[in-house]
């Protein structure tokens, strides 16, 4: 069966309820929209408001998006162990998983996984709740799916006014972590697979 060149980036965010996966999906989708791209974001969650497995799928493209779910992810942000076990296999052959560093000990290294100390970095900013934003920034840095400017504008429109600056700091931290970890793999937005 042929595979159609879809001219799109397929992103999956996965974690557990309460880790901000749903919010992360909305922020990234809005950033793509602000960049003038097409985007479809879908979600899957369990009955639990907290701790259940959750995922958000995003297709970002400059063409019409038909099927909205991610079959093979170009980029997977993985924040929890169950998400790792469930979704590691959905990363495309040339895709990249950005995973919480705590998972490294159990899961071990593999060529398309980059472990980043997302949670520890969030704690360094004073709150574990920034983990998702740091992860999003790292994903944006590696994928070039959205520009930093749009990501900031999107964050500003979706978080409480009094936390905007702290969230911006989290974004900076995420970009920095990605750069320090493996700068050779960073893709600038301009060089991403989306022609703009």
């Amino acid at each position, binding site marked *: 069966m042929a595979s*159609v060149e879809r001219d799109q980036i397929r992103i999956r965010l996965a974690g557990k309820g309460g880790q901000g996966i749903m919010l992360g999906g909305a922020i990234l989708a809005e950033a793509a929209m*602000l960049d003038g791209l097409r985007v479809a974001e*879908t979600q899957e969650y369990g009955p639990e408001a907290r701790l259940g497995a959750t995922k958000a799928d995003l297709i970002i493209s400059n063409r019409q998006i038909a099927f909205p779910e991610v079959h093979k992810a170009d980029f997977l942000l993985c924040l929890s162990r169950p998400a790792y076990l469930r979704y590691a296999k959905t990363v495309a052959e040339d895709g990249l998983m950005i995973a919480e560093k705590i998972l490294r000990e159990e899961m071990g290294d593999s060529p398309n996984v980059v472990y980043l100390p997302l949670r520890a970095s969030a704690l360094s900013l004073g709150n574990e709740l920034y983990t998702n934003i740091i992860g999003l920034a790292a994903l944006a840095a590696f994928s070039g799916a959205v520009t930093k400017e749009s990501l900031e504008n999107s964050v500003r429109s979706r978080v409480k006014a009094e936390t905007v600056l702290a969230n911006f700091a989290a974004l900076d931290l995420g970009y920095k972590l990605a750069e320090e970890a493996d700068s050779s793999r960073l893709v600038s937005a301009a060089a991403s697979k989306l022609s703009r």
Partner: protein
Amino acid sequence: MSPTPGANKQRLVMGNEAVALGAIAGGCDFFAGYPITPATEILEEMGKMLPARGGVFLQMEDELSAIAAVIGAAWGGAVAMTATSGPGFSLMQENLGYASITQTPCVIVDAQRGGPSTGLPTLASQGDVMQARFGSHGDRPTLVITASSVNDCYESTALAFRMARKHRLPVVLLIDAVVAHMREPVELPPPPPPQKASYPKIEEDTPRFGDVPFVPFGHGPVTVVTGLSHQANGLAETQRGVHTEQMMRTTIQNILSDPEIRRSWVSAYQLDDAEIAIAAYGITARSAREAVDVLREDGIKAGLLDLKVLWPFPNQILRETADKVSMIVVPELNLGQIVLPLKAAVEGRAEVHSLNLADGTLLTPEDIAEFSAKQRKSTKEAANA
């Protein structure tokens, strides 16, 4: 990077939110509902918007009372809707029949989830297609509209209101868990200012039922409304339901000949030279559209017939399509529902193959493309043998 022109007017909107905005655009000023996944955001959005517009938002004690309040409100002069999912839609069936026999304009949104029973509350399904048509006892006119994108959710809801008010019947919008919770950028007009619905003046002897305009209580002489078979004046007619039967036939004809329905019935993609037509609706139409591209890459001429209005079923369009193609593939997230009227409409003019999945996951473009290619191959082999 050069942003698309006009991109700044776009908003990232969730399917359920677009339903609520489409309702407001359609003149909705009354919502009654009960929380249920995956339709709850419609309830919440209406709860945010309606009080500020002077409209009514009611969270009722269950879905039985939600639809009942909606019908009562319509007779109070409101433009009313409710939204639910499978379990709630089941509970609403009896009163949906009441809305039908009393020719009450209203809109019911069913964001389908996996069933039966509590089933798969957060996962998608298209299992309520037949229930939307035949769920309430007895025969009745039905109009069931689908949506496969966030923009569709807005447009289809507004269309549902226009049709409900024009033809005096409950109109169902069938979406599913994925479309309900999907976010896409859309550019929507600002909501219209709040406006009271207006109704024609009637006299004592003006017929209230049949092919006549809807006039609620308090807008003229007294009116009798009953779920019993009734005459044009509303009074019960239980020896022989002549008038009620006539009313149903007329409404069905009016819907079938409505130019807007005829225009919206289907949307075609790459169908002109197709040998295989994929007939799909809702979220599955999106997979099917991509499947068409995949098949064409492989040199198989496929096309999509996106069914935007499921009921009344577009029999004539399917017959015409069947005359042009050799095969129709019908992917659905159920065990085979819309394929039944489709087969009846096609009457053997083309092969019909049903592709079904009811485990809460979506049929992917690859699933549909592979299935279509396989069916085509086995037909060719059979022809050569």
